[in-house]
């Protein structure tokens, strides 16, 4: 090779290597997929994260929230599968993405078919009753349920949802039993409780906040590891004397299958930085979430463990597990 071309080649290699070593960086707007419609849990969180990312200037590009509703999360999951290898698409997952494929034969995509990136939060819940109910503690309610099996009623989501899991665990642990009545939306569940048509419900702290402040609802217990700072007087299940495992509602980020390792590393590091920012702290506070940050390695283990536990609880409750 002539000297000059050799030098040119060497220079080119010298320039190229740092770029290659830098790994992945997004170059166009990111599609941020959520399975809920606008205003739903996943959507609100996605928008909050997108807004905070912009504020903290952690990314060179924008995040655009895309709603892919339907099928209990299946539509969003199959959209991600379609986007195989696309490094500019990520999604918010919730507990539903775990349980839906376990119960429905048509929901044939599981979390393992996608690329889990990080777990962000664990959403606690609370057991609440109407303010004029005769139960001051969870024990009161359980005792009343034991005395009148099947008479007391809980307004809740569908079978397999967290409300149901908590009920199954508590009923097994205490031997009490009470009715489980499904309502399609949080608004209707709250209306049923406030109207006195049901006795108890599982409610997210954010939904409950205002009703408790107005004095219409009372909290019996918190479903979380620690007491909730916003409701310091509510004991956790363990503190209330019930030895049942905590049932958190995990939320995190994942990506389509088949993306390169540098992209995974980029996203993990990005979110690791993100959860240390003050904007994120504010999101945690406003949403009354518990910080549950996990990187992909831990997250994959969590997924296996959570799915296995859920399978067990479903089977015990007499629900067919298809996967």
């Amino acid at each position, binding site marked *: 090779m002539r000297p000059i071309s050799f030098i040119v080649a060497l220079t080119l290699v010298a320039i190229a290597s740092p770029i290659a070593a830098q790994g992945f960086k997004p170059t166009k707007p990111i599609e941020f997929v959520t399975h809920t*419609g*606008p*205003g*739903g849990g996943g*959507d*609100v969180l996605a*928008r909050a994260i997108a*807004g905070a990312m912009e504020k903290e200037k952690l990314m060179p590009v924008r995040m655009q929230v895309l*709603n892919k509703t*339907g*099928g*209990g999360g*299946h*539509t969003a999951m*199959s959209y991600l599968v379609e986007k195989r290898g696309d490094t500019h698409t990520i999604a918010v997952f919730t507990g539903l993405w775990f349980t839906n494929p376990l*119960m*429905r*034969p*048509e*929901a*044939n995509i599981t979390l393992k078919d996608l690329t889990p990136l990080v777990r962000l939060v664990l959403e606690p819940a609370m057991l609440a009753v109407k303010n004029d109910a005769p139960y001051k503690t969870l024990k009161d309610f359980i005792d009343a349920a034991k005395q009148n099996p*099947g*008479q007391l*009623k809980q307004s809740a989501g*569908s*079978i*397999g949802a967290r409300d149901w899991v908590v009920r199954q665990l508590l009923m097994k642990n205490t031997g009490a039993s009470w*009715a*489980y*009545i*499904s*309502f*399609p*939306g949080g*608004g*209707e569940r*709250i*209306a*049923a409780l*406030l*109207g*006195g*048509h*049901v006795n108890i419900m599982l409610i997210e702290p*954010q939904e409950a*906040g*205002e*009703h408790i*402040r*107005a004095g*219409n609802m009372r909290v019996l217990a918190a479903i979380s590891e620690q007491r909730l700072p916003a409701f310091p007087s509510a004991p956790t299940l363990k503190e209330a004397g019930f030895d049942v495992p905590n049932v958190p509602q995990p939320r995190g980020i994942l990506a389509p299958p088949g993306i390169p390792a540098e992209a995974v590393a980029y996203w993990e590091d990005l979110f690791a930085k993100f959860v240390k920012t003050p904007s994120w702290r504010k999101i945690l506070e406003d949403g009354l979430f518990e910080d549950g940050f996990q990187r992909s390695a831990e997250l994959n283990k969590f997924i296996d463990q959570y799915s296995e536990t859920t399978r067990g609880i479903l089977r015990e409750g007499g*629900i067919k597990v298809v996967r």
Partner: protein
Amino acid sequence: MEVIVYLLQGFAVALSPLNLMWCFIGCFLGTVIGILPGLGPAATIAMLLPLTFKMDPTGAVIMLAGIYYGSKYGGSTTSILLNVPGESASVVTCIDGYQMAKRGRAGAALGIAAIASFIAGTVGVLGLMLVAPPLAKFALSFSSPEYFALMCLGLAMVVLLAGESMTKALLAMLVGLWIAGMGTDLFTSTSRFTFGNAEMLDGIDFVVVAIGVFALGEVLGNMEGRSGTQMLPVPKGLRNLLPTWQDLKDCRFAFFNGSVIGFLIGVLPGAGSTIASFISYGIEKAVSRHPEKFGTGVVEGVAAPEGANNAETGGAMVPLLTLGIPGSGTTAILLAAFILWGLRPGPLMIQDNPTLFWGLVASMYIGNVMLLVLNLPLVPLFAQILRLPAYVLYPAIFGISIVGVYSTSSSLFDVWMLGAFGLIGYAMRKLEYPSAPLILGFVLGDGMERALRQSLMMSQGDLSILVSRPISATMLFLTVLILVAPLFKKANAWRVRALG
């Protein structure tokens, strides 16, 4: 009387130039959205949400509310002119509205729709302002047994919508119930009638069924003929371009009916404007002196449902603003918007934010006036659409139907379903099955089954819960009355014939 003071303060807020502008933008956008089939206020509000972060919350909620009730004004336009329901609640308007257009009275129909919407919308705001807190309490006393009874009452409307053959009407309704049941069972997450298809997990969208059966069914029916020129007679003369004084007189009860029914049903979380329109239409027909004319193009048949679906927006704001409980898909997004803006929707929201609440109420009055002023002059303009020859208009309807369905879910599967329902709609026309009962069954089926099962879960299998509670017992009694009344009439007629 402090209400007056608050209201005046609210007007002071609402009449500020900036808020007036937001109100106008919202109303205008809402009307456009309502006219376009498929695209609904919920999706539009969701799209605009990020833009509202930089705005003052009062202005933002004024604009979004304007979109919400503005869309109810626009929804009647395509229903009347093209038999394409612009919005799910406008389905009932198609029944008499389109027939009026066929008789050359499209302008009158559009005008009556706008006027009924104005009156009912205003009544709705009045209701929100005056009786919101006690009404919210009343709403809470409604639970599954009452909802079940309400749905039964709605389904009894089938009897009133039946037309010639009761058997066929009932069969259509049953098919509607079946289609409603397709998808995932709420309680057990069992998949029903999904034919193994993941896209069917959520069932079939209302827009697909309504546009397919009504619009495409009608268009395919018209394809039989060969003439490609005029489709519907263009309204000539002021009598047909706008409603006459006689029309307004005829609709006196319809205005009242639509406003009250729409508002009351709107207050109940979960009951929608479609149910309100059907029940209002049914009541109008039941008390009319010429019930057999309904379905052929009577003004009251347009005024009642249009009023109902507008008053419903005022009603839906009641649980949202007084309890923080969303009553429908659109109010759920408004709720999320409140949270995103840092407001705390709940029982204390009005107390904590009187400026917002009263400013909103005042702007809803202003908005209704704006919409009337916007829509009435547009009526003769819209009626000119009918000048287009059939060979231009019908392909356009096909196109609008496809785009309308695709815009709601971006799913080609839904467009296929639209085609299938178009064929079903055509078949129903040829076989003389009425389509309104099918839509009614479809709208109510899901809610009715859910309410029944919830009620039986509450009472542990005891059916008497439905009659032991006063409200549900009353409604069930009314249902039975409506169902047996025609039998009495028939028995009476038979007796008269036998004697004579």
